């Protein structure tokens, strides 16, 4: 398939791998930020074929994984209400809240529906004027424009039975939080290609300079990831701390300006708690006051929810790249995709799920 097969071509992969081997002279720790990249790395076994000098650590870029437990519990509470149609991307349905997940709410009679786009959710609202339709708006900068568009359109059309439960997070504050940590091991980032397609990479330039880390906006196919690693290693070996774009077919320095404008119109930046990591200042998007009628947290009374994480789950440490999933004592034992202790074992972009799905063989 054009634009796909050439980015999965084993012959090209081997050439890039040879180039990486030729370039690397000392050990480097590189973090791929996005869970989609983690998935591609583990699925294709890229971590198994890299020279031993290069260690890949898996970043926090899985929106499902970092959505705080309180928000999941709020989702469960709203979805259980009569007269509510709760819509979400599929990944969120199996994420464990404090004592159940959205699938369970559905089996108990809640109207929970999987959608592929927030605009589909808006359509459900249009077709069901006597119901309250709520969309679970999670994700990074990538999904924010679509979610902003749904609210923008709802307002323009005067649709009042639509709202969003928002848990949007922003990547650069998380990247700087990790770099500022005394435990930080990351020496270079493969930045999330889809996030950069929206946001561009201007905001990464000061980060690369300040923390002396090369940053490479990188795609998701095996060739993208290998090329991203090659560029990162070249920059590390040269001591060059700047941003170099691998994902040429999707990312420009300024990103997608109309999409950014729409996001800024509907949402504003605020503090946000990340599951497993804690609160990161200025790391989330909130619905602006002008659009507060579309804020599900304000529309439904779900304010007082207090949560307690499983003490067996080390997802926070994994999301910071300090441990690998199979180093968790619960991995594959108490914690499996069938019975997950944390969100990293659920999402198709979660590092634990990727290890469980594709690489359990090494640990059996």
């Amino acid at each position, binding site marked *: *398939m054009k634009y*796909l097969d050439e980015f*999965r071509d*084993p012959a090209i*992969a*081997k050439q890039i*791998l040879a180039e990486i081997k030729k370039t690397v002279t000392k050990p480097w720790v590189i973090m791929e930020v996005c869970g*989609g990249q983690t998935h591609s790395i*583990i*699925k*294709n*076994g*890229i971590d*198994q*074929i890299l020279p031993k000098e290069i260690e890949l650590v898996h970043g926090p870029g899985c*929106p*499902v994984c970092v959505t705080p437990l309180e928000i999941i519990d709020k989702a469960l509470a709203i979805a259980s209400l009569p007269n509510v149609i709760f819509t979400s*991307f*599929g*990944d*969120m*349905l*199996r994420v464990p809240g404090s004592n159940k997940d959205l699938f369970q709410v559905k089996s108990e009679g809640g109207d929970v529906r*999987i*959608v*592929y*786009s927030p605009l*589909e959710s808006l*359509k459900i609202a249009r077709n069901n004027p006597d119901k309250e339709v709520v969309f679970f708006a*999670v*994700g*990074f900068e*990538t*999904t924010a424009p679509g979610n902003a568009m749904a609210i923008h359109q709802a307002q323009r059309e005067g649709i009042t039975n639509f709202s969003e439960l928002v848990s949007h997070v922003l990547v650069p504050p998380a990247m700087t939080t990790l770099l500022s940590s005394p435990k930080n091991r990351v020496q270079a980032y493969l930045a999330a290609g*889809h996030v950069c397609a929206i946001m561009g990479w201007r905001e990464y330039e000061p980060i690369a300079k300040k923390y002396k880390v090369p940053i490479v906006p990188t795609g998701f196919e*095996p060739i993208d990831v290998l090329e991203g690693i090659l560029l990162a290693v070249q920059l590390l070996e040269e001591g060059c701390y700047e941003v170099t774009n691998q994902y040429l077919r999707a990312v420009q320095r300024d990103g997608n300006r109309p999409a950014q404008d729409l996001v800024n119109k509907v949402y504003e930046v605020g503090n946000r708690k990340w599951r497993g990591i804690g609160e990161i200042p200025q790391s989330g998007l909130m619905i602006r006051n002008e659009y507060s009628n579309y804020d599900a947290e304000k529309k439904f009374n779900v304010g007082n929810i207090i949560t307690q994480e499983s003490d067996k789950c080390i997802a926070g440490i994994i999301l910071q790249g300090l441990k690998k999933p199979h180093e968790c004592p619960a991995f594959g034992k108490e914690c499996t*995709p*069938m019975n997950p202790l944390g969100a990293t074992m659920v*999402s*198709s*972009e979660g590092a634990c799920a990727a290890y*469980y*799905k*594709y*690489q*359990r*063989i090494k640990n*059996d």
Partner: protein
Amino acid sequence: MNNVDINSMSCPLPKMDFETVQLAHGAGGKLSSDLIEKIFLPRFGNKTLDKLEDQAILENPGKRLAFTTDSFVVDPIFFPGGNIGELAINGTINDVAMSGAKPLYLSVGFILEEGLSLEILHKIALSMEFAAKQAGVQIVTGDTKVVNKGSCDKLFINTSGIGAVPDGVNISAANIQPGDKIIISGTVADHGMAVMTTREDLSFKSQVNSDTAALNGLVDDMLNVSKDIRAMRDPTRGGVATTLNEFARQSNVGIQLYTDSVPVKPEVKGACEVLGIDPLYVANEGKLIAVVPEGIAREMLSAMQSNKLGKDAKIIGETVTENQGIVVQSTGLGANRIVDMPIGEQLPRIC
């Protein structure tokens, strides 16, 4: 494959007192008889069914029988390339045929929702008649129940099937040995994506058709090559990955899939990419996976390729002594990955 354009069939709905299914159609009285005599008997009739006894009396077709049952609840009931009726016929025929048995008789049980259009029921019965005739099986007994509106979704169909197992044929996952070859009869994920792209409210129109087909003719051709087929299954729900994992676990061998070996049509691959779904986990309704000794694999493959339902057949992997109970695929980069059992519903990627 043998998809019927039921709209082009020149057999109009017989004149009925009602346009839709009434509760009384399942109550055993005059309306029940009307439904049987005007819709079902003209379509399915044969000398066993026509007697309208409480049971079918069958000639014993052989020493060993294969017997199976399956229920069909697909939504939507009409999808590109087929409908719930032909699926209910083909699905049960295939489950019988995977033992190497010759499928002979079917039972059909309908659960109808009050208010279902009789026109639609008639169309479905027509395509069931066509599918059964094409596969050479008889519908010998049946039942109809009607439930209140809202108590089921349009209609559900249960079919059971009986077939005769030829002497010397013993097909079972327990027979698989290390060193065997694994053959798939054609492209995967067609049915699941045909249904999914219809069901999900997606903004693209897919060109994907279901592969629903009866595979007993293909199995005949395969048994003519050799009766020494170790194991055979049709990878329906859960897809190829699930069937291969069942083979690996039940025979305690490892399964090694070759890189990119499983054939997928470009349009199906495209739809899977967009939805973030792995075609190995998507349902098929007209494909089989056979495990055969290496010595007969080539001959078996070419016999399959000579049948139109096996024209895209391919050897996709082999059984090995290492990684017992696990399916592994080489990634093309010189690494291996596990192809695991799916947990349940395939979840789409969110970014």
